[in-house]
């Protein structure tokens, strides 16, 4: 375990080395959140509620969803693809570690910085807009658990997509496809409750909701305590399923991969 934890430190240091990209990236995201806030605001001036969502709820949702989306936001498919093409993946595989475990903790270190900064920034904006009145201690604890599990779900999905990069040269396409899927079906832009009938049912059987929608609803309180528990359980099930899928795919992918260079 200690060997994996050591990767958090290096991931964190690496994140710090890229602080200028990281700051501009965060600013861009922040502007996006603010824009989204005003878009929803104008929608709700014409309508009191959309599928049960009121402006009261929405003005929390926008910021909480943004916070949830900011962990592992970059995705690592591109960087893995680059390491394959340059042959640097050789050096990762020469280490006595699980490749996936190494990736996870490294990302955790890098994401830690990003998350902490976003937490402070978005947290203050949230408080400025909503004040303290919606907060609940119990829900916050469940939220943090669910947020962490959501990270797990997101990581498993990203890992599977990064394995696809072993087979294709078009890692950019793979990354974009994954980004669109996760952004749309996780509830990053639109709360899933607002989706129309069939689409709502589809979304319910997909793993993406666990990334953002689940923790958000728990925090805001649109899920009852029972619903929250069930959703958290569902996240755990998805991590197990996607994790297994990643393991199976990995077994195949590492057998076909070409090691370039030398």
């Amino acid at each position, binding site marked *: 375990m*200690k*060997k994996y*934890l*050591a*990767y958090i*430190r*290096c991931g964190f*240091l*690496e994140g710090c*080395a*890229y602080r200028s990209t990281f700051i501009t990236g965060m600013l861009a995201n922040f502007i996006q959140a603010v824009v989204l806030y005003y878009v929803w605001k104008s929608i709700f001036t014409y309508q009191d509620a959309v599928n049960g969502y009121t402006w009261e709820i929405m003005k929390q949702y926008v910021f909480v969803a943004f916070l949830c989306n900011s962990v592992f936001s970059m995705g690592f498919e591109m960087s893995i693809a680059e390491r394959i093409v340059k*042959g*640097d993946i*050789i*050096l990762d*595989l*020469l*280490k*006595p*570690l*699980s490749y996936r475990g190494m990736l996870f903790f490294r990302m955790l270190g890098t994401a830690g910085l990003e998350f902490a900064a976003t937490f402070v920034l978005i947290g203050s904006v949230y408080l400025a807009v909503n004040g303290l009145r919606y907060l609940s201690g119990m829900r916050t604890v469940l939220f943090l658990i669910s947020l962490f599990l959501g990270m797990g779900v997101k990581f498993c999905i990203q890992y599977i997509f990064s394995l696809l990069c072993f087979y294709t040269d078009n890692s950019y396409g793979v990354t974009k496809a994954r980004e669109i899927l996760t952004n749309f079906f996780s509830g990053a832009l639109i709360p899933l409750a607002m989706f129309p009938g069939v689409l709502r049912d589809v979304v319910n059987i997909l793993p993406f909701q666990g990334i953002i929608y689940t923790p958000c609803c728990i925090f805001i309180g649109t899920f009852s305590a029972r619903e929250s528990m069930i959703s958290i359980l569902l996240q755990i099930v998805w991590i197990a399923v996607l994790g297994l899928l990643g393991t199976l795919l990995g077994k195949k992918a*590492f*057998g076909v*991969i*070409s*090691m370039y*260079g*030398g």
Partner: protein
Amino acid sequence: MEMIEVRNLKKEYRIAKKSTGMMGSLKHLIMPQYETLEAVKGISFRINEGESAAFLGSNGAGKSTTIKMLTGIMKPSDGTVRIMGKDPFLNRIENARRIGVVFGQKSQLWWDIPVIESFRLLKNIYGIPEEQYNRNMEKFGEILGLHDFLSQPARKLSLGQRVRADLAASLLHEPPILFLDEPTIGVDVAAKQKIYEFLRETNREKKTTILLTSHDMKDLESICQRLIILEKGKILFDDTIDKLLKKYGGEMSLEEIIIRLFEYDVLV
């Protein structure tokens, strides 16, 4: 004890058959065609504990390909590899603990963070005891002259400095087997001399098994007793350097024999 055992090892690469130019690329996009390239064509050899062997062969002979299969990161197309009795590809993690690897062209150092952090990470990955870590850092620092740049990120090192740091990194956990693929690229003469001495000492005292490739005859002669000549994926010669000199040399030096070999494709 047998540290490395290779039997009838083969590697075929699938390579895209593309004609040049835009039209060629387009055609490949629609109807991709592949052909196989046999990089290693069924080689066999064994290396015992404490031996130091060198791979020698012209560019594209299949040396790096073989090393990639021996280190367990690439699956052979056919044949078997045993490292200390086990299949390295199937037991990648266990195998990685027992080997040290340098690919001179690549670096395991983290590009953007200080070199010392890469070393600390290795200490944790391999669970190297504090005492051993300090002793080795002290020793390598001395021999390889690391002290000057340990606090620099790897991107700021010169080629030779980077290679020296990579060599130290691969030795930190004192592996019983060392795979060195062109470990002296860009290293200056004085530092090379120290590296030779150091590797010979490690080989002698710790009985570390070494398999090395290099295009510098000096490397081979200084570090290794045994020579495996690999050409076009096949082994042409496998014995001591002395034997090669006696058999083919006459008045020629190792370098001259090898130049002849590469030019005429046979040992004469």
